[in-house]
């Protein structure tokens, strides 16, 4: 890399640099013996995220890579959803610890987790932003690992006391399966490098385009691409790499589950888009992925939707249900990935733009559903432990006992279902239209059937709070004493409704983000 190209690359990385600086500050502040300083962790993290978002929107130069418009859009989405998630994280760790300190115990920095928790949160989002800036396989590998490694720890430390056993179990499962997934895509990357002799994504694309003149797509390259996609499928929880999802989402505290449903999934989809772009998808020429790669994505999409939705029906635990629904939503987005960018003109036939828009919508509405769970708890029983609200029955009559939270759940569940005129509906339409434009009629039919299956369990989440009477035998669920958690719930519920008014603008921006690279004389010669 020459000095000039390094300089250009750093100009694209201001948001990540700011986030990293914020991470360092948070890591130190969380260890302060003064409560006021420790409390500043979240505001500082929020400020870093906000500044990073603004910088991403303003300073990102015109990109040259495979998807020149991707960076500003993806990074702004990350910082917006990240800010909403930050509100939800309040009080996740150190609750018992802070109570002990308040009752006069001296502060012991070894026993608190606040600094690590917020720092890892920011690290993970930094990794996610770096995924969007990736122009190299090495970069992509490191960015994916930077996204994932902190989440393993966040899951493990997310709950204390007796519930800690479950979050630790979740952490171990997540980590070990995650390491296997990482090894799989790493081996795939090695094969891709072996087939092309380069790790630069742009150079790889040019190599693949020059069939017969010392380039072209060899069997080795196909094998590498299949392994890479299978490994990255772990991040998006696609079948057959979805097995950890329900256990991990159930074991982790609800705010962290919400985080898991957005961050690794977004990183995974961005990586898949970048990887697939090297091998095919000349905008305007229909699907040009090699047959085997397309087949893998096709089968994965169909299975992921169906398995996710069918298993979600069987769940009585809301977190497990939302986990399987997160699997199903990955399947929906894979449909658009199979469809590819089409002519690349607008979101209606550009599957990549549809994915980017869906990731934003899904991040917000899913956050709302998890936020409602995070806002409620059963009062401590004889063992003095707070219990999370988990089963569908716990939501019974919520609109009467906690009207605001109940309605948030109703709105978010309807939006996840794709009920018009909520945001989820406008996010789902481009998935259908792009697949139809690409001629994937069978997949569209499977998608439609699955959307209908999903209605069954989402409507349970709507009917329980709205239509049922509160259970008189149980003490009513109480609010957790964290002000900013309901705020996160209301913000996401409001955005599900309000953003509909701006859906046109957002879709146009997503279309810009997935617009084709400028045709150069070089790539024309490749055709």
């Amino acid at each position, binding site marked *: 890399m020459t000095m000039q190209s390094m300089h250009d690359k750093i100009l694209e990385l201001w948001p990540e640099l700011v986030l990293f600086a914020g991470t360092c500050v948070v890591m130190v502040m969380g260890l302060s013996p003064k409560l006021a300083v420790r409390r500043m962790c979240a505001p500082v993290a929020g400020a870093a995220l906000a500044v990073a978002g603004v910088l991403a929107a303003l300073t990102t130069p015109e990109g040259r890579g495979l998807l020149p418009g991707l960076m500003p859009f993806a990074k702004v989405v990350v910082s917006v959803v990240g800010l909403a998630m930050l509100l939800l994280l309040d009080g996740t760790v150190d609750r018992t610890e802070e109570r002990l300190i308040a009752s006069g115990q001296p502060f012991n920095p070894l026993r608190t987790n606040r600094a690590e928790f917020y720092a890892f949160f920011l690290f993970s989002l930094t990794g996610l932003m770096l995924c969007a800036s990736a122009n190299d396989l090495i970069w992509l590998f490191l960015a994916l690992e930077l996204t994932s490694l902190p989440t393993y720890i966040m899951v493990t430390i997310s709950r204390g006391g007796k519930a800690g056993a479950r979050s630790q*179990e979740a952490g171990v499962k997540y980590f*070990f399966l995650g390491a296997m997934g990482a090894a799989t895509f790493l081996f795939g990357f090695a094969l891709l490098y072996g087939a092309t002799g*380069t790790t630069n994504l742009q150079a790889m694309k040019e190599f693949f385009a020059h069939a017969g003149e010392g380039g072209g797509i060899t069997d080795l390259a196909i094998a590498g691409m299949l392994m890479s996609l299978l490994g990255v499928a772990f991040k998006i929880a696609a079948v057959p790499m979805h097995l950890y999802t329900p256990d991990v989402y159930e074991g982790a505290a609800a705010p962290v589950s919400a985080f898991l449903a957005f961050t690794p999934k977004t990183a995974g989809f961005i990586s898949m888009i970048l990887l697939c772009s090297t091998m095919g998808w000349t905008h305007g020429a229909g699907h040009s992925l090699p047959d085997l790669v397309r087949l893998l994505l096709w089968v994965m999409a169909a299975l992921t939707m169906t398995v996710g939705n069918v298993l979600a029906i069987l769940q009585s635990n809301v977190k497990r249900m939302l986990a399987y629904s997160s699997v199903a939503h990955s399947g929906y987005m894979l449909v658009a990935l199979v469809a590819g960018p089409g002519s690349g003109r607008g979101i209606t036939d550009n599957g990549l733009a549809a994915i980017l828009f869906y990731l934003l919508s899904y991040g917000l509405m899913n956050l709302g559903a998890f936020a409602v769970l995070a806002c409620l708890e059963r009062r401590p029983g004889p063992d003095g432990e707070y219990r999370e609200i988990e089963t569908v029955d716990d939501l019974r009559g919520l609109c009467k006992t906690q009207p605001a939270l109940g309605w948030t759940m109703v709105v978010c569940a309807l939006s996840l279902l794709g009920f018009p005129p909520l945001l989820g509906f406008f996010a789902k339409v481009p998935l259908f239209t792009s697949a139809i434009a690409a001629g994937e009629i069978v997949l569209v039919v499977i998608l439609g059937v699955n959307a209908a299956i999903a209605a069954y369990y989402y409507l349970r989440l709507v009917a329980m709070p709205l239509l049922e009477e509160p259970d008189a035998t149980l003490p009513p669920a109480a609010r957790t004493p964290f002000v900013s958690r309901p705020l996160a719930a209301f913000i996401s519920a409001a955005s599900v409704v309000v953003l509909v008014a701006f859906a046109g603008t957002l879709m146009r921006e997503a279309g810009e983000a997935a617009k084709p690279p400028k045709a150069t004389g070089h790539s024309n010669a490749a055709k």
Partner: protein
Amino acid sequence: MLASWMLAQSDYPIPMTNLTLGHYLFVAAAMFAIGLIGFLTRRNLIIMFLCTELMFQAAGIALVAFSRYHLNHTGETFVIFVLTVAAAEAAMALALVVLLFRRRESLSAEEWGQMKG
């Protein structure tokens, strides 16, 4: 440069010159497969972790072999980063194993079976 070195030495019978890229790739693929099978069948957390480590190093071997084959340094650079990440993962894996042992006094993955589905 390396190719010219090999030409210069070609009059001499050098042991192991018949090693080709295929041999290295075979070792890498075998290691990856052993790691994957071990990961799926063994239940001891430390063995499972070693299996993922085996898979990582298999990729490392493939990278170095390809790097030599293409006569550029990208693959070798990649391996340095892979080693760093593998070290970070090792630190985490051992921390998690210690956590498990403190809670259950066992290293078996079977002990983590509270949640089912």
